[in-house]
Every structure is written in structure tokens, then in C-alpha cells.
């Protein structure tokens, strides 16, 4: 059996050196992993399709991979128009007849969960990622 000297808990005798090393190590570890995680965050959530809903009902689903222009007509006489454009993997509202025009000013979206909302026309455009297999239930 090995009976080498064992470093266990930090003691007063060693002047807290081990403890300080541990703290430095843990902080460094957290920083490195956080940086890694942030990198992943930017890769994460790149969606591949947008779903358009009007007044909560699905209007259509469009792939972000194909450039397309969609007229979303709403209102009693189809007089309200939002034009959704997908180009280069980005979705944005090109024009809209709504009074506030907020939706048309919205920056292009492409990340999972991002959305453009046109409140006056009750139009919502949301980016989704095609469902992958569920994350594995990681068991230790």
C-alpha cells in the first residue's frame, strides 16, 4: 500500500498555500470554461426555419436555407400586409403596412428563439431549430 505524504485539507501550518493554489486553480478553471461556454453560446441556437403565426394560428413554415419572399395578408379584407423576406439565412420584415412599423425596423433574425412581432397585425415570426434528439439524460 502506498503511504506517501498526503495533501488533504489546507492547514494553518502550510500558511494556507494549498488553499490559495486551490482558489487560483478553481478561478482559472471557471474562467477557461466560461470562455469556452461563451464560444459555444455563439454557435448555439442558429435556427434553421421560421414559423409565422397570425393571431396565434400557424400561417406557414419557411426554411432559412432558401431565399424567399412571403406576403402575409391579414385583416378583414386582407388589407394588412407584412412582407417577410428570407435571404442568406436571415429573416426580416421587409415592409409592413402597420402604423408603427416596429416590425420592419427589427433587425434580421436567425438564432433559435428570436422573433419579430407585429402587434397591430398580430403577426409573429419565430426562429426554430429542427428538433434534435432530446439531450441525453446524463447520469453519473
Amino acid at each position, binding site marked *: 500500500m502506498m*503511504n506517501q505524504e*498526503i495533501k488533504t*485539507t489546507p492547514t494553518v501550518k502550510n500558511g494556507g498555500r494549498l*488553499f490559495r493554489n486551490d482558489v487560483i*486553480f478553481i478561478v482559472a478553471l*471557471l474562467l477557461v470554461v466560461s470562455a469556452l*461556454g461563451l464560444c459555444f453560446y455563439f454557435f448555439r441556437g442558429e435556427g434553421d426555419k421560421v414559423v409565422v403565426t397570425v393571431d396565434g394560428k400557424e400561417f406557414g413554415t419557411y426554411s432559412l436555407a432558401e431565399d424567399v419572399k412571403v406576403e402575409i395578408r391579414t385583416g378583414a379584407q386582407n388589407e394588412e400586409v407584412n412582407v417577410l423576406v428570407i435571404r442568406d439565412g436571415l429573416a426580416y420584415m421587409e415592409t409592413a403596412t402597420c402604423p408603427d412599423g416596429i416590425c420592419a425596423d427589427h433587425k434580421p433574425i436567425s438564432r433559435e428563439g428570436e422573433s419579430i412581432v407585429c402587434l397591430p397585425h398580430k403577426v409573429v415570426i419565430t426562429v426554430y431549430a429542427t428538433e434534435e434528439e432530446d*439531450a*441525453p439524460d*446524463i447520469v453519473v
Partner: protein
Amino acid sequence: MRPTTKKIAVLGLCTAVALILAYVESMLPPLFHAVPGIKIGLPNIIIVFVLYRFGLKEAATVSLIRMLAVSFMFGNMMALVYSLAGAFLSMFVMVILKKLNFLSVVGVSVAGGVFHNVGQILTAMLLLGTAELGYYLIVLTVTGTVSGIFVGLCGAIVEKRIPKKMI
């Protein structure tokens, strides 16, 4: 009693305790069920203890038998793959840090806990081909650090309290 026989008996006992701790942990209320993989890792107290009292071979053996037993009892082969990957990386990192001898058992245990999660996530990313799991990394590193400190302190106490003559 010859040392080898005694050692086998002691390591068997350690494995049994690790299994019991795994069972006890499974009975605890899930603290954060939103994120899978968050666990205290109570059995790791035994692994850390064996690593410091005996060495790499013994700790790896106890760890392996424990995981095989758990997966046979609960019949989840997929989980076994993740566990093995996590445990392998964890053990690898712990042994290197222990050899380098600049950390206490707490620091080594924290590294073990964190890299256990890193190994599992990397495996999941390889098998599922998705980078989306990457954001688990931050969460699991923070929780792995907290549980690693706890496990390390417990392992150190156990190491101190159990006389070397006895085991």
C-alpha cells in the same frame, strides 16, 4: 491476513459504499431538475478517498465496477457510455494534478468533478453531433465546482479519520 487479500476486501467494501452513496443520492430531492447532470456526486467521496489512500489503479477499478453495477441495476447502457467517458477524463485529470502536487485534495476533487461533466458533454456532442450542449458546460462547471469542493472536503475528512492501520 495477506495484504493483497485485505486490499481486495477493503476495495470491495469501498465499492459497496460507493454504490450505497449512489443510491442515497438518487433518493435526494432533485435540486435543479431543469438541467440534467447536476449531482453532488456522493460516490466520488469514495473514489477520491481510494485515489489518495491507494492510488490510480485501485480508484479506477472501484469507479469502473461501481458504474457497471449501476448500469446493470438500472439498465441504461447509453448512460454507461457517458459515465465511462466522464469518469475516464475525470480520473485522468485528477491523477495528473495529484502528481503535480500543487493542489490540495479539494482542488483535485474540483477538477475531477468538472472534467467528469466535460467528458460527458464532449461525448454527447460527438454522439449527437450538436454543439448546443455547449452551454451546459458553464452551468455544469459551476455546479461541478461546488460539489467538487464538498466532495473534496468529505474525502479529506474520511482520509484523515480512517486510520491507515485499519485499511
